[in-house]
């Protein structure tokens, strides 16, 4: 209907009030795009961190472990789609830290990973996660004279890549958030305060509780470890709880290393000692597997499961193997493994979407009230249209189309604003973190002065409305100028609180698209009732009086 297009376009371009509805829709869309994009980016960062931490697939049999795991690693090495695998022992322990009140020791409960650093680096981002590096000349110049990191011997820090496993002085790598003396700065880096509390200068004692292959708990065992370095996975729960030691040392402390296997029935040999019936194989509780880049984790998981079945069959057929691997270990992708961490954030994001739909209802209400007033005002025009032959549906379509165009414009403007903010969110955040520049205060003050002049002109002319609008503008701009002059910087996304040092800044286009569709639908819904009212206008009544 040509006349409907002509009139709805003309109404849109000749009236100011509907632009308020466009602005409301645009701001709603921008708000949702910004919040949802940041939350999606946050989830992506969590996922990326998770994959960096554990590879693509995890095979685990907690506490008791998987015996003959070396044979499983050999089979995995022959498996198509698997590029690397690394054995790990996961357990819990207590670390006696080198600080605390005099005469006391601070004991931290920790999650202990016994690792093979070389293969772990092939599967995960272990090398990149090692935090402290030997200072280069540039960094040395920026350090205080008493900063212990100046004296950091690179071979001590590099022990993170060997952990002195099976050496005289085994080493440990701590999560960067375990030590309370690691202060996170605004740029996201860490600094030991006081410098003497820098962990790589110290030793700790680790206590572990061994569990036999039969699941029986033995006496706790202790080991002394040099702290070689600290690591940052960028996932707070990991960085604040996990310590890493060598796999062999972990096996030794937990009695999971290879050793003699005695008769479980308690029979004695000729010398009166427990009868040895074979060899107890070394065990690992977890095998981390990395697949070919681009292959779906579910596909890698399937291939790993097939490899495990082969491993199980081989060991069962081996008469020398007295201890058999578990029939049903947990085989999970990294995403399944991180479900507890990711699911709440996903739920929060979905909850945000639901909450923001309430804002859409508000904007639909705004569209409805604006259109209602316009239909009331335009009832005579509607009568004219009916008099020249326009149908009720045609009149309905004028206002529906108007609402549709308004929603579409608002949605695209909102996407533009949202994308602009998300793209520059870190720059905006950094600017908010600094005191306001002098020019911004001057501009705001100048605008306030101009608004004051306009207020005076309006008062002289006796225009109450213009006087009120300009005086409110003066007050608002004055407050902005005052606020800017007092602003000394506010950090909202504090890296010492959040997991990541930068705010995610990628627009979630899929959800932005859904948001835009929602905005258009709600604009249409808001316009629908006034449009129906317009279609119901009685042309005789509308045209009877001037």
């Amino acid at each position, binding site marked *: *209907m*040509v*006349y409907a*297009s*002509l*009139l709805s376009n*003309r*109404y849109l371009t*000749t009236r100011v009030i509907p632009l308020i509805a466009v602005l409301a829709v645009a701001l709603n869309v921008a708000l949702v795009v910004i919040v949802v994009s940041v939350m999606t980016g946050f989830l992506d960062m969590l996922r990326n961190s998770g994959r960096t931490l554990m590879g693509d697939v995890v095979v685990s049999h907690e506490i008791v472990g998987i015996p003959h795991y070396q044979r499983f690693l050999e089979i995995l090495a022959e498996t198509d789609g698997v590029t690397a695998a690394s054995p790990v022992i996961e357990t819990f322990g207590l670390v006696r830290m080198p600080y605390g009140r005099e005469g006391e020791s601070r004991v931290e409960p920790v999650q202990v990973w016994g690792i093979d650093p070389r293969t772990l680096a092939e599967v995960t981002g272990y090398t990149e996660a090692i935090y402290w590096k030997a200072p280069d000349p540039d960094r040395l110049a920026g350090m205080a004279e008493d900063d212990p990191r100046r004296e950091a011997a690179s071979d001590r820090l590099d022990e993170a890549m060997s952990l002195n496993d099976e050496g005289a002085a085994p080493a440990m790598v701590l999560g960067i958030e375990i030590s309370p003396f690691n202060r996170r700065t605004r740029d996201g880096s860490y600094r030991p305060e006081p410098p003497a509390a820098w962990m790589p200068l110290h030793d700790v004692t680790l206590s572990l509780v061994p569990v036999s292959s039969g699941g029986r708990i033995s006496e706790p065992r202790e080991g002394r470890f040099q702290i070689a370095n600290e690591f940052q996975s960028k996932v707070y729960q990991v960085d604040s709880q996990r310590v890493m030691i060598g796999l062999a040392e972990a096996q030794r402390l937990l009695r999971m290393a290879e050793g003699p296997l005695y008769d479980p029935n308690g029979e004695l040999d000729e010398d009166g000692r427990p009868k040895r019936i074979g060899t107890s194989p070394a065990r690992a509780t977890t095998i981390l597997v990395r697949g070919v880049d681009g292959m779906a984790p579910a596909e890698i998981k399937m291939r790993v499961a097939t490899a495990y079945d082969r491993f199980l069959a081989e060991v069962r057929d081996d008469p020398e193997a007295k201890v058999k691997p578990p029939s049903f270990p947990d085989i999970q992708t990294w995403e399944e493994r991180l479900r507890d961490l990711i699911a709440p954030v996903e739920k929060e994001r979905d909850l945000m979407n639901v909450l923001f739909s309430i804002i859409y209802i508000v904007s639909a209400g705004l569209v409805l009230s604006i259109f209602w007033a316009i239909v009331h005002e335009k009832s*005579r*025009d509607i*009568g*004219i*249209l*009916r*008099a*020249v*032959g*326009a*149908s*009720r549906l*045609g009149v309905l379509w004028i206002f529906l189309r108007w609402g549709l165009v308004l929603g579409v414009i608002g949605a695209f403007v909102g996407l533009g604003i949202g994308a602009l903010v998300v793209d520059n969110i870190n720059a905006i955040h950094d600017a908010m973190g600094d005191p306001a520049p002098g020019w911004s205060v001057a501009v705001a003050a100048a605008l306030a002065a101009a608004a004051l002049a306009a207020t005076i002109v309006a008062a002289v002319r006796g225009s109450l409305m213009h006087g009120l609008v300009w005086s409110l503008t003066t007050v608002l701009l004055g407050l902005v100028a005052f606020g800017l002059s007092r602003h000394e910087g506010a950090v909202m996304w504090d890296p010492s609180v959040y997991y990541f040092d930068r705010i995610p800044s990628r627009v979630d286009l899929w959800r932005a698209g859904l948001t835009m569709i929602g905005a258009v639908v709600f604009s249409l819904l808001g316009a629908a009732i006034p449009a129906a009212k317009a279609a119901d206008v009685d*042309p*005789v009544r509308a*045209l*009877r009086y*001037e």
Partner: protein
Amino acid sequence: MSDGSRTPPLLEAVEVRKTYQLGATEVPVLHGASLEVRGGEWLSVMGSSGSGKSTLLHILGGLDRADRGRGEVRFEGASIARFGNRDLDRYRNRTVGFVFQFYHLLPELSVLENAMLPGLVGRVPFAWRQERSALMSQASDLLERFGLAHRLRHRPRELSGGERQRVAIARALMNRPRVLLADEPTGNLDSRTGGEILDLLAEEHRRGLGIVMVTHDASIAERADRTLWLRDGRVVEDS
């Protein structure tokens, strides 16, 4: 002028009754009004304020309906009460043209667009590109004939009362209707401008346009071929 006695009626009202409901009160306006308009005839309907002149005009034009089962309006013998909504819209768009006392132009549209408006109704965007220039040319010709060639791009608020009424008449004639229904077309104009508007209607009448004009001014009614009187909702005199 037409010879009304020989030509069969183009448009006729037969015993039309109309009652308005004002809250709980029923206000009868027409009590069985009947009239006939022949092709090319100029008919004046006179009556005092509130006599039902405008109501009769609206019912003749299909903008309003007579009370159900109480009289009917026929166009070329067919009762418009039997028209569906689409046919009634088409009847208002193609068969009749309305001119109102207060012009009733759309303020957002230019003079040319206002005049084109009935031509736009019923057009679909797909065919619009081909039809657009023909419609614009037709509306421009009409406005030029009415002395408004220099006002095509102006908005109604920029025109005088007489100019606005000429635009309204051009709009009413856009789809070449058979009958023009004019409700006090000079009622809001000074006598000189009113006279110009009546001259313009007379010119269109000479070209064969049928006109039903409602007025309460006898000197204006004299311009018509025939004059009817409406008193208390009935046609009481036919001069």
